[in-house]
């Protein structure tokens, strides 16, 4: 074999990270393109201006305001990233955590209840959100291991249950504003519950920027470390890839599944805490559908190539265009055009596996051919068809 003589191009294309990046870029471009076509169909004259507004997001503001809007985008990126981490963590262990949406909701519920009704300090609220999400995730895990209920189905049911439960709990007196559907602003209800800002608020010129941002980044790295560097991660990935082999090797499948779902739920719940404790937005108790955050997390996770570090980039990008959606020409379009683009991207992500697999198959076939060409390779060709 002449491993060392392979061209740079081939080594690049063989690199999984490069393949993922290429595929993800393709999805993004495809999503933007189709989004642009939709704009064109609705009203050709304003389409170009609007699609560029989506892509520019904060750049479309005057320089003095850019920091503020960049700050807001990043603050909103945090929960998205956390939901993506939740989805990808479960996915590595072979489960599709569509329940991240509900875990996020229940996390928000616990956080805001602790903050507004119980007037607890931020750190407790944060932990409460994570714990609530973890509990809900664990319910899915237990249902899966004990009752054989598909995680997707239980996740969906729990999403709705969480939504109605949260709306019910948070619309009680003393939590909901008397005048509107939102919960009382944290700054008025319990300023101690607001996350420390670490001076980041001054850096961006945006009040809500704070500890949540570095914390989310640290957690993303932590997730990567746990999955790839630890014994626990080794077991989890083995369980995800081949549960039978994991069992054969003495790993405890049921325990790992429940633990995984609890961790995934905790990540999503913590995401809600890190968002709502910034005081940027309040919970709206009148919403009648599960917030998109968890579902967008799926898009982010797949767009990021199911890597925690890739997800940091893809989460920022998705939030970037979502925030940018506000910049479309509202005389003709609605800001949901950016949800359309991000859902198109996740739809295209479903094809990514296909394209990546095609590339890998070609490479593998080449390898097999070379391996087979080696005369002394015992065992090759011994397999029955």
């Amino acid at each position, binding site marked *: 074999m002449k491993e060392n003589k392979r061209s740079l191009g081939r080594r690049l294309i063989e690199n999984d990270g490069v393949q993922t990046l290429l595929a993800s870029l393709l999805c993004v471009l495809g999503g933007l393109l189709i989004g642009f076509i*939709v704009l064109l169909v*609705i*009203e050709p004259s304003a389409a170009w201006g609007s699609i560029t507004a989506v892509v520019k997001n904060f750049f479309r503001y005057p320089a003095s305001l850019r920091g503020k809007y960049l700050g807001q985008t990043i603050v909103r990126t945090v929960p998205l990233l956390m939901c993506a981490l939740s989805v990808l963590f479960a996915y590595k262990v072979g489960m*599709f955590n*569509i329940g991240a949406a509900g875990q996020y909701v229940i996390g928000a519920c616990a956080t805001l209840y602790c903050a507004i009704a119980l007037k607890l300090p931020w750190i407790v609220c944060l932990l409460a959100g994570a714990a609530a999400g973890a509990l809900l995730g664990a319910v899915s895990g237990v*249902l899966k291991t004990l*009752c*054989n*209920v*598909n995680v*997707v*189905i*239980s996740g*969906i*049911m*729990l*999403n*709705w*249950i969480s939504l*109605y*439960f949260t*709306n*019910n709990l948070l619309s009680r007196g003393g939590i909901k504003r008397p005048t509107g559907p939102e919960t009382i602003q944290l700054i008025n209800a319990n300023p101690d519950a607001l996350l420390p800002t670490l001076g980041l608020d001054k850096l961006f010129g945006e009040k809500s920027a704070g500890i949540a941002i570095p914390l989310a980044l640290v957690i993303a790295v932590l997730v990567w470390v746990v999955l790839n560097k630890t014994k626990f991660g080794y077991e989890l990935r083995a369980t995800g890839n081949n549960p039978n082999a994991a069992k054969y090797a003495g790993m405890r499948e049921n325990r790992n599944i429940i633990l995984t779902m609890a961790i995934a739920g905790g990540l999503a719940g913590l995401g809600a805490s890190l968002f709502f404790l910034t005081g940027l937005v309040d919970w709206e108790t009148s919403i*009648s*559908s*599960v917030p*998109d955050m968890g*579902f*967008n997390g*799926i*898009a982010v996770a*797949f767009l990021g190539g199911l890597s925690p570090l890739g997800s940091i980039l893809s989460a920022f990008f998705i939030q970037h265009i979502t925030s940018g959606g506000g910049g479309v020409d*509202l*005389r*003709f*379009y*609605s800001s*949901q*055009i950016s*949800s*359309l683009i*991000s*859902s*198109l991207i*996740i*739809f295209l*992500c*479903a*094809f990514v*596996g*296909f394209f990546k697999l095609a590339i890998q198959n070609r490479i593998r076939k080449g390898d097999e051919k070379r391996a087979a060409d080696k005369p002394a390779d015992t065992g090759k060709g011994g397999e029955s068809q």
Partner: protein
Amino acid sequence: MILLLQYTLIFASVLMLVALGGCFSEHSGVINIGLEGIMLIGALGGALAMKFIPTSVGAPVMILCVILAAALFGMLASLFLAVAAITFKADQTITGTAINMLAVAGATVAVKAMNTAASGGSDVSSEIAYTAAREFFTVRIGSFQFNWFMLVGLICLLVSYVCLYKTRFGLRLMACGEHPQAADSVGINVAKMRYAGVLISGLLGGLGGIVYITAGTNAWKFENGVAGFGFLALAVMIFGAWHPVKIALAALLFGFFRALGNVYTGIPFMAALKLNSTVYNMLPYIISLIVLAFTSKKSRAPKAEGIPYDKSQR
């Protein structure tokens, strides 16, 4: 009480139609998580027909057109799943989730653009009203409001049963969901059958969508989606063990719990409980989760569902 019966029947019709759709798709071997989105797009098709077809055409024509529009739109939505999952062998769960998101975003963008253009910018809502046309679908029998869609549901149930268990098509469809290699080896085109299964689920899902949005209101805000009914229908399908008749019974049960939320204020002892409406909203989901917890151990999904069929792996 009659109101409760009426709502139970209409919600059961919705759940049954959509669950039957899921049943066809899964029997062909494709998991359809996207039913929620398919319902919404079907509802959009039906709502558009009701808005734009003049009421002067009369009830039969209107009903027919609305049904056709909803079915067609539903099938178009399901085509997204079919192409991705069958032709490109994409992950069916991701694709389905994407379709749910696409449907809400797409319908919202479209309806808002339509309203904005029609009103010159004063109406930017995602709402379509169909008050007049909706009258055509109901017939009063005493205090019971009969809805033609109940009949449509019943017909679809009978046709589904016969189609699955008495015809060549049904036998072949189910073979593809159980053992596609076996089907392929006797000359059945697995991809074609799976396309058929998914498209039928689009048809039925789309119908379910229009029935749902016309069940209790005269207008629908499309950014709200269909409130998880597509997902409930999936639970109904699992609880109904992928069998049309059992699905119908399961749909009645779930429809009843859903109807409670609409009418509990009118039932003295329930109103006296003073429970928040969210409790009733939650009820169907809680019940379905409990039911699934007790029945899933034994439940038998089509064996090959969720697995893209790869001719080279035999």
